[in-house]
């Protein structure tokens, strides 16, 4: 399994043609207390760069974009009852959705953890 990161502060973990997507610890820290997450339903077709989910903090709503194209196979039902999982475990139990990749070539050019961490330090 390989985990990639985007400049939109999402992480994407790839296992064969299946990818799990969430937001990074840096992103949840910037957003503050998360009170609602709107995730795409299974079967939704996502296009790289298109709106995929919405994260609501106390103060504002923020869009989450699809880091790669694919078809949603599962969304994280646990976030409905406990959206604060995104704060407490952003890169674990606070994942947003899984998708089946339709264009694995889109993974090229995403950052690995070291590159992302180095980039975040410059922000």
């Amino acid at each position, binding site marked *: 399994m390989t985990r990639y990161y985007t400049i939109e502060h999402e992480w994407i973990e790839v296992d064969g043609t299946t990818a799990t997507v969430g937001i990074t610890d840096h992103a949840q820290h910037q957003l503050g207390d998360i009170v*609602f997450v709107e995730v795409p339903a299974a079967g939704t077709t996502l296009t790289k760069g298109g709106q995929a989910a919405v994260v609501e903090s106390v*103060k504002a709503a923020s869009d989450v974009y699809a880091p790669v194209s694919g078809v949603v196979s599962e969304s994280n039902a646990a976030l409905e009852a406990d959206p604060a999982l995104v704060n407490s475990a952003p890169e674990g139990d606070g994942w947003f959705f899984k998708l089946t990749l339709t264009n694995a070539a889109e993974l090229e050019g995403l950052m690995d953890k070291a590159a992302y961490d180095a980039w975040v330090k410059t922000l």
Partner: protein
Amino acid sequence: MYDTQDDKTETQFLPLDGWHRAHGGRMVEFAGYWMPIQYEGIIAEHLWVRENAGLFDVSHMGQLQISGEGAAEALEALLTTDIKTLEHGKIRYALMLNEAGGALDDLMVTNRGIYYYLVVNGATKWDDIAHLRQHLPDHITLNHLEDRALLALQGPKAVAALAQLGLVPAKPGGPELGDMNFMEAAPFKWGKVPLGISRSGYTGEDGVEISVRGEDVVALADALCALPEVKPIGLGARDSLRLEAGLPLYGHDLDAGVDPIQAGLGFAVPKRRRAEGGFPGAARVQASIANGPPSKRVGLMIEGRMPAREGALIFDGDTQVGKLTSGGFSPSLQAPIAMGYVAPEHAAPGTPLEIDVRGRRLPASVVGLPFVPHRYKRKGV
């Protein structure tokens, strides 16, 4: 609330700027100043204020002194409230309207004896000062207290916490802190430091607002936050607290297009002023009272957990009947709440409505304000 200034002037620093940063405040631009949006997190800060005492820096707000022969009459010519009957040491909430009856600002007026003390919104203060200077008679003096900071200490433990600093009335015979009621004000001394204290606030809780010289504010903030029941609170929780308290935020729930009756702020236009008029926009206010306003500010409880924000449209079936002016997640109620304006026939508590959020219709119902009961210290309580 999170607007950044749109003019070209550089963002200014408040006297507590370094203090906020040292206490972990996340600074944002607001009303032309760098201000803390949060420290440990909005929900934790919000709940702390409801249970303990929170210290807010609101030094961006404008503190004005109005003095001179006939100052009460001069202020009445510009404000909606009754100034002539405002006793020494008492505070009233007032609106400043334009000629069309729309709100230019909402503010607090205190009778301090030899002058009136006004606290106006930070984002509007320069326009307010210009408006006052233009319309007040020449012999009335307006003094902008730019060297003063303003702190708010809010929550059920706020007054007891402040009392621990050992304040004494600045004038013999002045009230003790604990004896002051909501909307009363008095000068105090903290050692040699003069403090202007008002029992008022913007959270729905008991508490005070403290006017203090900029050079003394760091020491005061340190002394208060050294008490275990006091923590610094950011603008984020200030907004969620005032929303739960049903209090309008100027520029959002109140603006130049809205009259006081529409805004549900009829109490800011007392009986005599309604009858006599004599302030800008009085005709519209009187018409709004006589004929009913074209829309009304209401509270909305939203089903589910998804918040609806300012600007979301309100529907009755397929008909748009209003728009949200504030909305967010209530930490106390653990549910989304909002305020907005709706046509009068949909304004009664219990009316079911829907709010459009990203194409989804959220069921909501009109509720009386506030969402969370006020806990002010009233006379005899």
